[in-house]
């Protein structure tokens, strides 16, 4: 205030009229509100775009690490006959496998990490700790962000009955298909009674039960895969859930290095 460098009126007179005080206060409040608005706008930009930059980098790191681990692992000739169960306990944040969903885009693929905490979900879709591993009986639960942080599951609502959801592990491809009636496209018409898609409350943990929507303590009736994300977009009020069931036997990577027919379209 003491050394104005331009011809501003601030230093001209000290004996201001009472109206000047109110004008200063009003201007201060106005500028504060405008600033707050800009900060909120910047936060939107952060959530929608900047988190993607961070998440993409971390996802690439997980994917590279997983590929490197698999490439370095010694070949096990027995897996072609019966794919060995993946390690029962994967450390948090470590890659579990790759998820391929052709419906979400050609070559759509994400490395899935173990754990569903904020830290893991920033790396990529997260595998619910304690749920089945790829190909095992039970339910493979995977959560992913819908908007921001890489937006892996932005278009999860586009999945239709019969769509392949493929899990790739070190030795094999596991093809799951979205439940429902592929003939009519009705997601709710699966013979098992389990819907292909549902919107549930965030506390509805039954969706990742060994048999989806059944008692969590009940034994599994098959091999399922469940994807969860937030719903509606930009909100966390509900959860969008997609259920799929293992379709046929696993395809050994030795037999199909480029992917199972469900992915390659052969």
């Amino acid at each position, binding site marked *: *205030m003491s050394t*104005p*460098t*331009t011809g*501003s009126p*601030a230093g001209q007179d000290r004996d201001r009229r009472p109206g000047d005080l109110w004008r200063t206060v009003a*201007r*201060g409040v106005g*500028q*504060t509100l405008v*600033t707050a608005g800009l*900060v909120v706008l*910047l*936060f939107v*930009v*952060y*959530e929608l775009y*900047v*988190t993607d930059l*961070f998440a993409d980098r971390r996802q690439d790191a997980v994917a590279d690490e997983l590929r490197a681990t698999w490439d370095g692992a010694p070949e096990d000739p027995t897996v072609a006959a019966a794919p060995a169960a993946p390690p029962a306990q994967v450390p948090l944040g470590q890659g579990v496998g790759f998820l391929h969903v052709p419906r979400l885009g050609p070559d759509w693929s994400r490395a899935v990490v173990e754990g*569903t905490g*904020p830290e893991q*979900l920033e790396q990529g879709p*997260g595998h*619910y700790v304690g749920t089945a591993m790829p190909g095992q009986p039970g339910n493979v639960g995977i*959560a*992913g*962000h*819908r*908007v*921001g*942080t890489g937006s892996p*599951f932005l278009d999860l609502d586009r999945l239709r009955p019969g769509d392949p959801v493929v899990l790739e592990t070190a030795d094999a491809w596991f093809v799951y298909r979205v439940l429902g009636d592929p003939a009519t496209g009705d997601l709710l018409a699966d013979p098992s009674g389990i819907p292909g898609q549902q919107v*549930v409350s*965030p*506390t*509805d*943990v039954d*969706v*990742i039960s060994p048999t989806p929507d059944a008692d969590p303590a009940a034994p599994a009736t098959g091999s399922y895969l469940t994807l*969860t*994300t*937030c719903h509606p977009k*930009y*909100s*966390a009020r509900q*959860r969008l*859930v997609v259920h799929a069931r293992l379709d046929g036997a696993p395809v050994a990577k030795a037999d199909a290095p480029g992917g199972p027919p469900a992915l390659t379209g052969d």
Partner: protein
Amino acid sequence: MYTWIWRHLPGGTASKAVLALLLVAAVSALLLFVVFPAIAPHLPYDDVTVDQ
């Protein structure tokens, strides 16, 4: 506040403009890379899991 900052930036109008833009960039970077990552996990938009 903005008037006060503008008055205290040194130099002529061009210098003030450049410095003001630098200030805006610095504050934006601080928000984007330090403040927002720190507060985002505490906001409720990012919950994608089912739990109790």
